[in-house]
């Protein structure tokens, strides 16, 4: 089972844009596709000078030998990836699958909750529960209808699907917690709730299920460096214990997670993140973008003289709005 030659590794075979901030990358990594299980994540470095960022594995295809990542362009690295990662390009480093896979137990009835970007990583869990024979209720939440994705994939593996949008443009109006409440009202025999999304949403889910004493698992997303248990940057408080999300998690009992601590720790690098983003945006603006109107007026010969990096500026998704 030899790994591939350096230059051919981690090729992006497919890219799909769900909205102007959310995009999907399908990365070629046959060994990882074989090893990956629901709940695990990878650490990605876009280029040699890049930072290591954890991304949950949203799907994997063992036949094609690919893993799927769904990324939200919020900071410098994820925006830069949005600009540079195209089909046929390569990532500098992808390592994983990391973390303890989700325990897909013998639950009979499960609610799988995904909010925003958490919708992608909840999908393999929903599918795994379905495959294990459970009755799966999917609850997915988006800000509005335009940001929705993968509804078909969820319909295919969920026995029921509740879509929630903040503005009511699709499904029910309200947060995913509304969806959970609906599910609990309808089914008195829910064994487990699995929730993935922003910390504030996962806390909401845990608080919604707490009075009903329904086991609730959440997937935590703290800041990481190595992802192998070595730096301790991802430490989280679970009850009275300190755990490392990268090797002891990322799934934990939502009723025991100290979300205040998690959210405070997620803000650790806000000042430097802002600096990095601003510098990068300024750097992008310095190059004069070429308008599509100009391109269409150029002859083929003139076009061929353009620096390819300038053509990259034509990216229709370049104008990101942040998350």
């Amino acid at each position, binding site marked *: *089972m030899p*790994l591939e030659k350096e230059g051919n*590794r981690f090729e992006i075979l497919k890219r799909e844009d769900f909205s102007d901030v959310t995009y999907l990358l399908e990365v070629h990594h046959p*060994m*990882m596709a074989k*090893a990956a299980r629901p709940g*695990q994540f990878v650490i990605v*470095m876009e280029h040699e*000078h*890049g*930072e*290591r960022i954890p991304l949950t594995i949203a799907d994997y295809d063992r036949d094609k030998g690919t893993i799927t990542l769904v990324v939200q362009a919020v900071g*410098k*690295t994820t925006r830069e990836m949005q600009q540079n990662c195209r089909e046929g390009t390569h990532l*500098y*480093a*992808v*390592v*994983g*699958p*990391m973390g*303890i896979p989700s325990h897909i137990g013998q639950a009979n009835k499960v609610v799988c909750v995904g909010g925003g970007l958490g919708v992608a990583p909840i999908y393999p869990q929903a599918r795994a529960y379905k495959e294990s024979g459970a009755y799966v209720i999917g609850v997915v939440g988006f800000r509005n209808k335009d940001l929705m994705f993968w509804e078909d994939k969820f319909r295919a593996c969920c026995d029921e699907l509740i879509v929630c949008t903040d503005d009511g443009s699709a499904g029910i109006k309200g947060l995913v917690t509304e969806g959970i409440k609906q599910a609990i009202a309808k089914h008195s025999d829910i064994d487990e709730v699995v929730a993935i999304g922003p910390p504030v949403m996962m806390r909401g889910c845990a608080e919604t299920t707490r009075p009903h004493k329904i086991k609730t698992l959440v997937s935590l997303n703290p800041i990481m*460096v*190595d*992802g*192998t*248990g*070595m*730096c*301790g*940057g991802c*430490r989280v*408080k679970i009850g009275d214990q*300190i755990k*490392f999300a990268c*090797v*002891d998690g990322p799934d934990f009992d939502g009723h025991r997670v100290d979300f205040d*601590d998690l959210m*405070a*720790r997620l*803000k*650790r*690098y806000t*000042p*430097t*993140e802002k*600096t*990095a983003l601003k*510098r990068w945006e300024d750097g992008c603006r310095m190059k004069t973008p070429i308008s599509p109107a100009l391109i269409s007026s150029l002859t083929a010969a003139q076009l061929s003289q353009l620096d390819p990096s300038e053509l990259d500026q034509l990216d229709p998704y370049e104008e990101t709005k942040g998350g």
Partner: protein
Amino acid sequence: MAKKKTIRTIPQERTPVQELDPVERVKNFAEVNCGYRIEDAVNEAERCLLCPDPACVKGCPVSIDIPGFIMKISAKDFRGAYDVITDTNLLPAICGRVCPQENQCEGVCPVGETLEPVAIGRMERCIGDLAIAEGWSNIPYIEPNGFKVGIVGSGPAGMACAADMAKAGCDVTVYEAFHQAGGVLKYGIPDFRLPNPVIDAEIGNLTKLGVKFECNTLVGRLFTIEQMINEMGFHAVFIGTGAGYPTMMGVPGDSLNGVLSANELLTRCNLMRAKEFPNFDTPLQLGNRVAVIGAGNTAMDATRVCIRLGAEKVYCVYRRSKTECPARAEEVHHAEQEGVEFHWLTAPVEVLGDANNNVRGMRCIRMELGEPDDSGRRRPVPVAGSEFEFETDMVVFAIGTNANPIMGQTSKLKLNKWGYIDTDASLAASIAGVFAGGDIVTGAATVIEAMGAGRTAARSMKAYLGIRDTDLPYLSEGWGSAGKLFGIDLRERNFARIRIA
């Protein structure tokens, strides 16, 4: 040979080594110790008594023929000296820099009984650097033997084991989870102590031996140890994944923003090059007044990194006294020179935070030394009523590490009660064909001890595979307790392997 040297006839003073001026060096990450020039090494070589039964060789975890290479230096045969060293240690430029020689070879040097001991480490480094500059490598004739060996972790233990197995003719692949090989040498030890080009040069030597490095590979999760043996065709596997997992302080406030492990600080700064932020994307938000807890080599590295990154004040807080401090003497000395303020006999009680969850200070308590504990060092005891607070905006803890749990989570390897891999004296683990060594077996130790373990494991691995070891007559009595592994005679283990193959 000239007439026999005695303690009276040798140069009495240890040849000094040039160091960068503390005032200048705190502004950059250039290597502090400039190393011996060739002539310094030749001078220092004169100080060796060339003892007939050299204590230094026994003091060296990898048993380098120290008088042998010193003799070559005296004869100005530097290439010869390099060959002598690299017969046992493939990484002289690294070991010359990071070994705690004062507790090893130099600690037992008879010259040291009356004078300063012979500067073995500095000479070793000089030869190692010369070899890099000249592009020397000591590549023996290797006849492939068809055995495939997998090494998990590219740190010092893995590198040493890889070198020995490759020399024996095995097809060696080293797996590393990070995007660059080198392990703790890369992420942990800063440039001013061990420059990255030195590590890369030594890794280059391994590559010349035919060793393959596969980065971005998290063994255990991408594939398991059992898969390596059963499916991937490895005849033997060595695990040298290190201890990693930092120990928490366990005091209130230790999850405040601004409290981080030395591992995180060093990894961000060294491997991820946060010191060059924003040209490199990984940030490191340095405090103005940094308190580093602990006084081992990692703590020293952390203090000195913070000084170089521009912290106004760096404190080193340690619960015992300077005598018990585990760091190399040279590191403490360098840290003092660079302005690190040491607070011996002081232990943290609480990290204090502000409204934004950032560190604003630390409450500490004074300690005094009581009766010796298990480690033989006097146990620190808190002095009642001596608590005090001081201002700090960043706390770095360097108080040791625990076993990394990934191997235990993903394989059926037997672990000891602390979570380290259980091995016998020959470093064989509980799965046939799997060996382990370094911090993942012993808990946190030094680079050279890890290398020594890598070599011991390599010897056992060769015996297991039935490869005749040039260091060792086949199945000699030298094996002693290692003649049997888990109660099975070594020869039978070979038989077991043949059946699998």
